[in-house]
C-alpha cells in the first residue's frame, strides 16, 4: 500500500515508518508539511493512504486535510490524522474537515493498524 507520511519532525516520520513496517506497509514516501505533501500527491496519483500530523508549519494537518478533500483526484485516498492533539474540540474539527480516522499519540502498531482499516472502510477502499 503506497503511503504518504506527513510530519515536520523527521524523528516522528521515522517512528511512523517503523510502526507501518510492523504492519507490513513498507512502500512509504515522506513529506515535511502539508504543502509538500499536496505537491507529492498531485504529481503521483498512486497513493493509497495518507498518515498526517496536525501541527506543522507552512500548511497544518487540518489545512492539508481540507485541501485533499477538495481535490477530486485525491479526496478518496484514506486520510488518517496522527497527532498529539487529543482534546474533543480537535477531534470534532478533524471530523468536520472530513478525516477518515484520527489516532492520538502515543499509539501502538495495533492502534495504527485498526485506525487504517477503519479509514479505508470509511473512504470506500
Amino acid at each position, binding site marked *: 500500500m503506497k503511503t504518504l507520511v506527513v510530519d515536520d519532525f523527521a524523528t516522528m516520520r*521515522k517512528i511512523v515508518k517503523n510502526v507501518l513496517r510492523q504492519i507490513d506497509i513498507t512502500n512509504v514516501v515522506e513529506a515535511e508539511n502539508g504543502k509538500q505533501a499536496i505537491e507529492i500527491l498531485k504529481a503521483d496519483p498512486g497513493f493509497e493512504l495518507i498518515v498526517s500530523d496536525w501541527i506543522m508549519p507552512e500548511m497544518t494537518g487540518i489545512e492539508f486535510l481540507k485541501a485533499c478533500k477538495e481535490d477530486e483526484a485525491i479526496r478518496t485516498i484514506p486520510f488518517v490524522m496522527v497527532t*498529539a492533539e487529543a*482534546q*474533543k474540540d480537535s477531534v470534532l474539527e478533524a471530523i468536520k474537515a472530513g478525516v477518515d480516522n484520527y489516532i492520538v499519540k*502515543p499509539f501502538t502498531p495495533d492502534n495504527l493498524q485498526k485506525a487504517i482499516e477503519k479509514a479505508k472502510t470509511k473512504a470506500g477502499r
Partner: protein
Amino acid sequence: MDAAFVNPYLVAVQNVFTTMLGIQIAMGKPELKHDKLTSGEVTGVMGFAGDKKGMFSFSLTKESTLQVYKSMVGEEAQTVTPEVIDCIGELTNIISGQARVQIEKLGYKLSAALPTVIVGEKVEISFITKVPVVVLPFTFQVNGTAGKFYLDFSFE
C-alpha cells in the same frame, strides 16, 4: 497551585512512556522549584493558554535522553544530535497533548504552541508566572541502567 494538576501530568507521562517507549516509570516526591535553572541537560518546553495559562518542561539527563531516544526510535545515538533533539521535542508535545486531555476532564480547555528544546546543563529558564513551579521527579530502568527525568509545570 492546585495539587489536582499533578495527576494529569502523571497520567500523561505514564501513558507515553508505557505505550510509546515500553518503559515503566516511578514518580518521586513532588517539590516546589527553588531555582530558575533547567532540571536536566536536555529540556523540552511548551507554553499553553486558554482557561489556564502556564508552562511545562520535560527535562532529562543526557544519558536518559539517549536511552529514551533508543527506546523510541530503535537506534543508538552517542551524542545529542538534531534527531535526538527532535525526539525530545516530539515527546514533550505528546506528553502535553495527553496532559491537556486529562486537564479537560477537570473542566479546563487549553491550547498549546510548538515545543522548544534547550540543550545544556543548568540553563537559566524563567517560567513567567506568579504561582510556584512544581517539579515532578521520575526514575526508570532500561536494561538495568537507571534513568531520570523531571516534569516542571506551572498554572495560573
